[in-house]
């Protein structure tokens, strides 16, 4: 990252913190409604050094990683089938859209009921929320593959598998990874929603604890900050993978 970009990012962060502090000062909200940024950062550091956040963070990360892998992996397969088969599109699209239109918040309790408070239910919720954007991005990306490149492949006697691996997937990769950028941040949302529906550990559980029995609003904000940082970090991982795989074309 260039120096000017780093300076811009730091400046944006400073502005955000200043606005937050200004709202606290002007509104006069007490810390249990809106704690000032310094108190949240201090609480984050104390909670981290006391080992409060790490087990919850780890649980959420595992759910996100597995949910994203399952959701994005299956979405790429289904997205390809949607792009290349009119029959599959006709049969599957209505269910896809219906699943996307149903709020994950409404589905989460049902999934928790069926699969219990363990990992499987959370992974399923993450997968469901990741699936749609990645499947649609894959479908759009595969459909947009230049027909002239496919003709080139045919003229070189490429097999169906070779066309898929050496032409279609590389050509559609920017679109697929664009869907994954959206998907990976949604995976974090899915994990938190899944934890709210029933879990013993996770950042979503920690928020509930901080808001409820602990009534530690700075800890709740510190957890929210952690969730935001996880989202940003995962998004950046996808961006780095995209730069590595797609690069300058």
């Amino acid at each position, binding site marked *: 990252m260039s120096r000017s970009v780093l300076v811009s990012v730091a400046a944006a962060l400073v502005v955000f913190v200043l606005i937050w502090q200004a709202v606290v000062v002007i509104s006069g909200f007490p810390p249990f409604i809106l704690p000032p940024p310094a108190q949240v950062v201090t609480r984050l550091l104390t909670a981290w050094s006391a080992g409060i956040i790490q087990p919850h963070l780890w649980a959420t990360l595992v759910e996100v990683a597995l949910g994203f892998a399952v959701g994005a992996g299956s979405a790429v397969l289904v997205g390809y089938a949607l792009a290349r088969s009119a029959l599959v599109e006709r049969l599957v699209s209505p269910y896809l859209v219906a699943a996307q239109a149903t709020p994950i918040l409404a589905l989460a309790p049902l999934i928790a009921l069926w699969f219990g408070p363990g990992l499987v239910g959370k992974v399923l919720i993450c997968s469901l929320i990741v699936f749609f954007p990645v499947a649609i991005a894959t479908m759009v990306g595969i459909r947009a593959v230049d027909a*002239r*490149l496919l*003709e*080139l*492949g*045919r*003229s*070189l*006697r*490429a*097999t169906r598998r*070779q066309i898929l691996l*050496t*032409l279609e997937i*590389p*050509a559609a*990769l920017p679109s697929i990874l664009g869907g994954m950028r959206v998907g990976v941040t949604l995976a974090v949302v899915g994990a938190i929603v899944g934890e709210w529906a029933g879990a013993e550990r996770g950042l979503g559980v920690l928020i509930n604890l901080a808001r409820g029995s602990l009534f530690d609003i700075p800890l709740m904000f510190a957890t929210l900050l952690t969730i935001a940082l996880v989202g940003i970090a995962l998004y950046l991982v996808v961006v780095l993978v995209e730069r590595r795989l*797609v*690069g*300058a*074309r």
Partner: protein
Amino acid sequence: MTRTSGTIRVDGVDLSFPVRGGGRLPVLDAMSLEVADGGIVALIGPNGCGKSTLLRAIAGLLEPDRGTITLDGAPITGPDPRIGLVFQEPRLLPWRSAADNITYPLELAGWSPERRATRLAELADLVALDPGVTGNRPAELSGGTRQRVALARALALEPEVLLLDEPFSALDALSRERFDLELLRLWERAATTIVFVTHSIAEAIFVADRIVVISPRPGCVVADLPVELARPRSLDDLDAAVVSSTARDVRRHLGDTAAAA
């Protein structure tokens, strides 16, 4: 390099495309043409007359409705490794380097990396590709270099026949003349049979042994004109009297076909 060339015979080929709303659009009508082993034939005709379609049919990418196309007597029923095709635009894979684009057909054919590297060096030499750019992606190459890469890719499997669909049309006039000259040098070394589509009468005369004039759609051969220009050729030959007379003949036939249309 071994001389590898083949004879193409197009015999009574009809070809049509389905159109929206039903029916078919005839593109080639009783097209017949023979290109002898090691010869160079230029196809010339008005826009949409089916020149590129004919090239694709010879490449095995389109199946004729009627008639046959053979290479050395054997029918062409699909894409054939003995036939190399250079498209109007380079069609390079933007995510691959120039070198990886050139060796792409070899990779598909299952060649080992060592064999591919050896063949890459031969091909870069054959098309006079600057070794300094082989690691660059297509976006980093000039238009002419991209077309060189496309030409090298088409020659990768040592085809007997090279089909060129207006390969230098996107280049400026000076670059185009230089590429025509290089194409002739390449033909002398690789000695493939060449069929190429062009809109330029001068280019057709300079490069080809014969110029086949095609009628407006549905395309058929209206004239098959020999080019009486000695080989090896140089750009100075474009000033020869025979060039003017051949050009006049080609124009007359093109004019006749336009009037008939």
